[in-house]
């Protein structure tokens, strides 16, 4: 523990250099702007801005991208409270009481408590990250190829299970991502696969092109399809009256914030869209234990403080499996994994030892980022809310220009732009067909690692598949994967049987 604190102090030395403070500030500001814009969530935000980090060293680049991630989570609350429009999915629950507070002229306290709660919970979660990530990484050092294979399979199934849609569809997307990931050179033998004689495809499909295409361009095209009246709509931003919460507001909120910090941290370690689950869980807990449950839904400040704190705590906790195991359990961290690999950092058990300056610098920057966000969110809320006044007919072409320029800067290649547009169309079509893009991206990033682990495991066991269940750690991941795969199916069958019985009784 003392060692971790010492290294954290050294991390502050890295994070507090003028350059890194600047990039942390930029990430927090840009992330907040992205979070404010409905539709453009942290996933699209990080994907769009990866190319902007190419000229930076890995530490500065990830400091900026991590800032965008938690900045977007902060920013999402602004539109939820002011306009009843969640900037990203994790802010949906904040709309319920946040917007009611705004209607009662208490938008200021609602936004301020979002910022304060996010700051406190985020800071608590970073403490957890400091102590748990090295421990988990230490444990993961004993992992061999079979353990990593089982862990990745578990990650795929768990994430597919909780992305909200159908499990089969999510798995289809993950497999499609892995198939796309096989394009290029075979990681073991070096033979070309699915390249059709093209030299461009030898290096595989550019991850950034897929990410920007699926999320950025896909989102733009989905917006373009809306009726023309939507492009003309102007949003009136309400004026903020009293900005700061009263002492009684703070008293009512502090318990909710602390509970949500712990809850969000726990949920953040579980695979899936942790911030979304954490916000719902926190809201349910607060309503259950409140002395005034009838106020929930009518503007209860705990209904804003809890979910927003849980949201940020879960975001920070999601960095633990990413950094310690190299396995992202949530879509935004899957994109961050891609960014890390692009910058030559391979996250996993040895990363903390191999790149201590990077790891502790990024962790320390999170404290700074949280503080910056607190400062930003309190006085600049009216400014951020004004972004919503930009009509979509201007905003969408701007996003398109930014996507194309950003994509070109990656390799100075027009081919990348075409690949990005192709995946943009795919992202748009997949949306229409109700398929999630996130598992595809996870498949693309983890597919090559999964293949190597799979082939190495079978080489070790001379083709014997029992290697995945004969080693205790691998067995536990396999069992966990099977539980995640079959338990929801079991509950679905039980629900269906109950419904049939009910219909039979009524009939």
């Amino acid at each position: 523990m003392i060692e971790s604190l010492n290294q954290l102090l050294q991390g502050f030395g890295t994070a507090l250099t003028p350059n890194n403070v600047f990039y942390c500030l930029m990430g927090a500001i840009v992330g907040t702007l992205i979070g404010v814009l409905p539709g453009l969530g942290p996933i699209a935000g990080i994907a769009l801005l990866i190319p902007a980090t190419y000229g930076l060293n890995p530490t500065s680049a990830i400091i900026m991208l991590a800032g965008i991630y938690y900045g977007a989570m902060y920013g999402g609350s602004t539109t939820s409270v002011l306009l009843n429009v969640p900037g990203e999915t994790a802010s949906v629950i904040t709309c319920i009481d946040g917007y009611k507070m705004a209607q009662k002229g208490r938008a200021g306290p609602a936004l301020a408590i979002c910022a304060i709660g996010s700051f406190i919970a985020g800071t608590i979660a970073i403490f957890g990250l400091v102590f748990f990530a090295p421990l988990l990484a230490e444990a993961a050092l004993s992992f061999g190829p079979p353990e990593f294979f089982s862990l990745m399979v578990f990650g795929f199934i768990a994430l597919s299970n909780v992305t909200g849609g159908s499990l089969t569809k999510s798995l289809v997307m993950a497999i499609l991502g892995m198939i796309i990931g096989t394009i290029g050179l075979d990681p073991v033998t070096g033979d070309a696969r699915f390249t059709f004689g093209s030299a461009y495809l030898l290096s595989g499909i550019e991850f950034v092109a897929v990410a920007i295409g699926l999320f950025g361009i896909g989102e733009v095209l989905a917006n373009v399809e809306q009726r023309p009246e939507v492009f003309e709509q102007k949003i009136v931003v309400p004026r903020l009256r009293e900005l700061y919460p009263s002492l009684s507001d703070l008293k009512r909120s502090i318990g909710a914030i602390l509970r949500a910090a712990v809850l969000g941290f726990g949920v953040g370690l579980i695979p899936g869209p942790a911030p979304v689950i954490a916000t719902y869980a926190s809201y349910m807990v607060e309503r259950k234990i409140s002395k005034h449950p009838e106020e929930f839904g009518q503007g209860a400040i705990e209904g804003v403080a809890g979910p927003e704190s849980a949201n940020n705590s879960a975001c920070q906790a999601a960095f633990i499996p990413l950094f310690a195991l190299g396995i992202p359990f949530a879509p935004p961290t899957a994109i961050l994994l891609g960014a890390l690999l692009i910058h030559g950092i391979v996250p996993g058990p040895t990363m903390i030892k191999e790149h201590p300056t990077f790891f502790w610098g990024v962790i320390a920057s999170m404290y700074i980022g949280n503080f910056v966000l607190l400062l930003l969110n309190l006085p600049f809320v009216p400014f951020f809310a004004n972004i919503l006044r930009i009509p979509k007919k201007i905003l969408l072409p701007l996003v398109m220009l930014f996507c194309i320029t950003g994509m070109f800067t990656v390799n100075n290649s027009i081919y990348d732009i075409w690949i990005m547009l192709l995946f943009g169309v795919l992202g748009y079509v997949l949306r229409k067909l109700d398929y999630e893009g996130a598992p595809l991206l996870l498949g693309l990033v983890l597919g090559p690692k999964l293949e190597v682990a799979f082939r190495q495991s079978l080489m070790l066991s001379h083709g014997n598949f029992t290697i995945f269940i004969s080693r205790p750690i691998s067995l536990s991941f396999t069992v966990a994967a099977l539980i995640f795969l079959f338990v929801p199916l079991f509950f679905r069958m039980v629900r269906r049987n109950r419904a049939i019985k009910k219909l039979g009784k009524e009939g």
Partner: protein
Amino acid sequence: MKKETTGGILFLVIGLITVILSSRMHLGDFRMAGTGLFPFCLGMVLIGLSLPIVFRGLFGERKEGEAEIDAQHKGHKKNVFAFLLFTSVSVLLFNSVGFAIFSFLILFSLMWLLGFRDWVRNGILSLLVATGAYMVFVKLLKIPLPKGIIGL
């Protein structure tokens, strides 16, 4: 055709193509896997996962309210095609006209398409944003972008 069926068939076809193409590579065996074995397995799994989706789409009952949802989702597809067409033409011209003209062109055409039909105001705004983008990307961030015919 239902969304379910369309999606299922799309992935079934992708799975089949993957299996066919990877079976032409060296497959090896599980003890010493060849280049094609992993994608071959993935293709087989994809086929296995898409078949139930196709069957559900073909023979499953349509959920209550699904027709209404589909009708609501029918948007302005023409806009999407036109948007992609304008973007593609601009990208085709990117190298030859250079970043400065490209950014003006793409902004002007896409804003016009989305309903900003005031030529003068659209032109001025596109020019201002294109100039700003040029200053940020080329002058400030020193990113090497195509100079094109005007050499900017």
